[in-house]
């Protein structure tokens, strides 16, 4: 156990040196560009905002069912099958009827696996988009589990893109936007101590439509009564959409030169410009409502045909609200409304205080443990202490190498590792002491001390590792940081004890093997 070949010594020394270098690169700016990774500080240490958003998919599901109605009608019409009495119940079930003689044919179409355009088949899930029940000639369709997964996945991806564009527009520094599950999105905004503007922007679906205001029920497309944004009045608006936010190429806040009012100007794409031109030329004298998320921003009377493909929205904006609206329009609509279900914000000075407190606690804890070990074991305490210091370098070095995120509980994990890391050396040293009682040969006593304490050391560390692994998978945010430092700490501890400490012990013991009392 005590013998180390030259190659092994060199390997251990090189390995350790590399990690000491990586450790130091966090604090000292080396001019060599060999390594430029750094430990990330968690939001609780650098300050910032964490938002957890949940996508409310129910409107998307209803919309998809709505869209299915004309598709079904068209598909079966071509097969000369008449479907009627379409209904959507509870926002999740589509009901329709057919004639009793066609029930089986409809069933077959729904169950088809290849190129099924009305009820898509997902080979990877071995399931269709819709599950259905047949009651005589009545069909009841629901999205299957996997149909819902597809919907959720796609709206999550779309929402992520839109959120990224919105957050990027605001220009916060290094935002972190991630999917969680299939209907949630995490937004981490380092350095942001007041997230109310972002929350305002993310809380809006930004579904923009241009629709005519109508009187009575003259519209075949149907109509709905909508409120104005400021709650001042209501208007009946056609359901026919002339333009939507998708047709917008750009939107910017600006000042109307005549009224000196703050407005949002926009440019339309080709299709949009054409449609806008047509609508404005046929609808002179009518009011065109600009509807955002179900509320009318304004409904100006059309004075002239607008064929230039650009226009402006007024609505009593302040410069800030015009800027935000323009931003929302540029970044596009969210596929579904988002709810913020968790928010955690830490101010930058609290973060700094936490860093200072963490470093202070680490320094003091470290010093106390080192003094304790030195007074208890003297020369071997010194070996344990050198090991402990190198262990700390290794731990921080590995965290740096993987660009792990260091949180306040993570620092606590490092301090705890310092306290518990000496355990392995203590186990070994105590065992050696015992072995020496029955063994005259110092070298053999050391050897069997290491050998016999091995199971205890490994078992003891594995138990802590189990706790760390479970915490890693079950914990969130800062707690995850704790489990990472605790878990990595176990590996660095085992390495430093069985390689570094044993090497130092071996060097010392072989030099001083004739001394009476070594430990």
């Amino acid at each position, binding site marked *: 156990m005590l013998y180390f070949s030259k190659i092994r010594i060199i390997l251990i020394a090189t390995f350790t040196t590399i990690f000491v270098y990586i450790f130091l690169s966090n604090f000292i700016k080396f001019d060599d560009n060999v390594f430029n990774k750094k430990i990330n500080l968690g939001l609780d240490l650098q300050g910032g905002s964490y938002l957890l958003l949940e996508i409310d998919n129910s409107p998307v599901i209803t919309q998809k069912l709505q869209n299915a109605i004309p598709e079904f009608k068209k598909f079966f019409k071509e097969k000369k099958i008449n479907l009627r009495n379409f209904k959507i119940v509870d926002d999740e079930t589509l009901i329709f009827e057919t004639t009793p003689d066609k029930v089986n044919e409809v069933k077959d179409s729904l169950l088809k696996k290849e190129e099924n355009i009305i009820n898509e088949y997902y080979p990877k899930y071995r399931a269709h988009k819709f599950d259905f029940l047949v009651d005589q000639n009545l069909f009841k369709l629901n999205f299957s589990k996997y149909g819902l997964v597809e919907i959720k996945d796609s709206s999550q991806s779309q929402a992520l893109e839109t959120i990224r564009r919105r957050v990027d527009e605001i220009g916060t520094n290094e935002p972190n936007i991630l999917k969680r599950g299939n209907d949630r999105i995490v937004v981490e905004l380092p350095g942001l101590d007041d997230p109310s503007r972002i929350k305002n922007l993310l809380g809006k679906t930004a579904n923009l439509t241009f629709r005519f205001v109508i009187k009575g029920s003259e519209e075949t497309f149907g109509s709905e009564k909508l409120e104005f944004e400021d709650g001042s009045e209501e208007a009946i608006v056609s359901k026919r959409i002339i333009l939507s936010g998708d047709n917008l190429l750009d939107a910017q806040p600006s000042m109307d030169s005549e009224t000196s009012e703050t407005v949002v100007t926009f440019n339309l794409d080709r299709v949009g410009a054409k449609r806008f031109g047509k609508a404005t030329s046929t609808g002179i004298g009518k009011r065109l409502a600009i509807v955002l998320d179900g509320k009318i921003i304004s409904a100006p009377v059309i004075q002239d045909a607008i064929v230039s493909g650009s226009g402006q929205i007024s609505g009593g904006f302040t410069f800030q609200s015009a800027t935000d609206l323009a931003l929302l329009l540029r970044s596009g609509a969210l596929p579904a409304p988002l709810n913020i279900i968790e928010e955690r914000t830490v101010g930058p000075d609290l973060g700094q205080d936490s860093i200072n407190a963490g470093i202070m606690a680490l320094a003091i804890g470290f010093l106390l443990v080192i003094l304790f070990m030195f007074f208890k074991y003297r020369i071997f305490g010194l070996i344990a202490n050198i090991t402990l210091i190198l262990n700390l370098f290794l731990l921080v070095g590995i965290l740096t190498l993987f660009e792990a995120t260091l949180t306040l509980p993570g620092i606590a994990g490092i301090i*705890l590792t310092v306290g518990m890391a000496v355990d392995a050396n203590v186990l070994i040293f105590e065992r050696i002491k015992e072995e020496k009682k029955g063994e005259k040969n110092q070298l053999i006593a050391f050897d069997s001390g290491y050998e016999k304490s091995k199971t205890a050391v490994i*078992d003891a560390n594995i138990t802590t590792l*189990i706790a760390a692994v479970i915490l890693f998978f079950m914990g969130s945010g800062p707690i995850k940081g704790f489990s990472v430092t605790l878990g990595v700490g176990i590996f660095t501890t085992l390495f430093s004890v069985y390689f570094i400490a044993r090497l130092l012990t071996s060097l010392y013991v072989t030099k001083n093997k004739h001394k009476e009392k070594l430990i």
Partner: protein
Amino acid sequence: MNNRISFNKFYKLFNIISSLLIILSIVLLVFKGLNFGVDFKGGTLIELRTTDKIISVSNIRDSLNQLNLGDVSVKNFGTDQDYLIKFEKKDFNNPDFISDIKNKLASSLGNSFEFRRVENVGPKVSSELLKSGIIAIVLSLAAMLVYIWIRFEWQFSLGAILALFHDVIITLGIFSLFSLEINLSIVAAVLTIVGYSMNDTVVIFDRVRENLRKYSDIKIFDLTNISINETLSRTIITSATTLLALFSIFLFGGEILKGFSLAMILGVFFGTYSSIYIANPILVFLQVSQKTILKEEKD
């Protein structure tokens, strides 16, 4: 033999004390319950720092009570210029919720304060966090049970797991008794306690097993005592260094880590105690003998 302290003389006494403590803890947990923080209960937490001496706990509470926020709690947090405010209401639909509160506070208290930390946890998230916290603890206990079962015999596994239960329940009982807040970091602490306490138990068990092989004529009652004594200096030194680290977190690591380090300190204390006085008496009770481990080795 290194048999200085007769720990085994007190097995009965401490088992009675431990049983009483566990019953007391369960009674507390059932009837008084735990003081869940916003992580697990949902609601809003604001850490506020003032630069004005006039602002006091009652000031802040009075101004907040006018805002209709549900059950408001305000208390000092570390220094006398830091306050921790908690209330049930969280209004996610209003993105200006926090700024509104800030403005209303400013109108009654003046501008000499800042929000250092804001946490807003919705009911869905808090119940999920609670659920995953409980699962994590149960899972870690189960994992330890299985691990010890694999490494030792079931008698050892049972002893170790009862010791863990003992530590976790009494630590939580103390948190209940003093109404200390249970948040995410406490779950982390409990899991670490599970790991630590196990670590301590395993070291003694490892020695018990070794001694079982070595001595066929010593009864398990005395054998556990020998093993405890042989590993005693290690137990003391490791507990001491771990406690040194924990006390420095408790004293210097800032307010946020206070609850965490306190739970850990209690856990290390009870973990060390239970390794000696719960895990070992179980081996005696289950009449573990040389046969127990020899059977294992034959397999």
